[in-house]
């Protein structure tokens, strides 16, 4: 009667098995090996050559309400169906739980009536269960002037669960309508959440 290996349950003949059964046992062995290879291949297909990633961009100035999600007008890349700009131009939707890198940028002209002032941006991650997290935060001091203020944000490692959505938020400290010159929000997966063995 065939026995099996410990880790991958690969069958092999025992000393009491009849030689005439060898071909069938061998086919069982190769089928089992194939199944193990398929499992490895499926795991690799999740990581190479494509990973889940998406980036939304605002390329033309648009008004927005301070502290509310910024609107985007283009998809720079989306490898995983994370975006639907027609249905929702504000959010990236995550459909694979994992650890992600999140980046963003807001660009405005001076917002300070009397400089100096505060300019802040971040990505809001809502988990779909009522919870939320602020990430990729950054701020700049508004000292007035005619040049644009570029405020980038970066979060190298953030655990995001499937079903979450991300939006870009900007504030200069008061709830008024402002004009965003340019912006982006980007996310890319880099690992699952299991502990290494």
């Amino acid at each position, binding site marked *: 009667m065939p026995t099996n290996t410990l880790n991958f349950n690969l069958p092999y003949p025992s000393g009491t098995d009849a030689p005439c059964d060898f071909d069938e046992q061998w086919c069982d062995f190769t089928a089992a090996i194939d199944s193990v290879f398929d499992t490895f291949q499926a795991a690799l297909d999740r990581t190479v050559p494509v990973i889940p*990633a998406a980036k939304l961009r605002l390329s033309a100035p648009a008004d927005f309400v301070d502290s509310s999600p910024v609107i985007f007008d283009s998809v720079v890349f989306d490898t995983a169906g994370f975006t639907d700009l027609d249905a929702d131009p504000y959010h990236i939707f995550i459909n694979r739980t994992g650890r992600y890198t999140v*980046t963003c940028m807001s660009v405005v002209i001076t917002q300070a009536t009397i400089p100096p002032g505060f300019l802040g941006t971040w990505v809001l991650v809502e988990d779909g269960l009522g919870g939320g997290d602020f990430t990729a935060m950054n701020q700049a001091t508004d000292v007035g002037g005619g040049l*644009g203020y570029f405020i*980038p944000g970066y979060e190298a490692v953030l655990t995001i669960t499937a079903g979450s959505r991300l939006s870009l938020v900007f504030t200069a400290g008061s709830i008024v309508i402002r004009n965003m010159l340019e912006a982006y929000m980007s996310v890319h997966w880099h690992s699952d959440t299991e502990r290494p063995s």
Partner: protein
Amino acid sequence: MTLSCPEGSNYAAIAKQLHETAMQAEERISELEQELRSAVNRPTIVQTFTAPQTGFIDNLESNFGSSVGPFVYPFNNVPGDFTVDNSDDTYIYLGEGIYEIGVSATAVPAGVVNDNSIRIWQIKHYRPDPGSLDPVLPGFSFVDRTASTQVEANSVIGVKVAMAGTFRIMPGDRILFTILHTNTLSTITLSDIKCYMSKVSDASLTEVL
């Protein structure tokens, strides 16, 4: 590829079949191993610039990095001498994809400091466009950027930046690092310049969950 196995009536070919199974298994294992190595060794270039870059005048967006001064590779797993910035060949060699690119540096006025003057650092992404008259890169059109605005507090140590962004890059595209400042009383010197590039994914394929 699936592994073949013997038919019931062909006992005489057992040795040959075993050999064939072994060869097929080895081929499949080799393919998986190569993919695994690709997954854990993404093309990555890290550059450290070995000398300050000087003479940046006010109110003029100017390139810094590989187009200006010497560097070394603390890490580089891409064959050849490709650079993160100021190179068309880098992304021709590496191909279309999603790249994470970052830069860090320090900016200190070479002489007198303007209090509350501005520093705008940029990682800029350009695409070939022969008819373009872009002031920073003629013959190319601006596509995307990551940028950071800082204010010089006149603290003697200048301002420091560390920023990164993700870009969808096509073969022939070019990345530039630029600085624009409003310190009218003297030029700016850049030091501690480091940059990196890592290809995180292809961009044209649909991801498999």
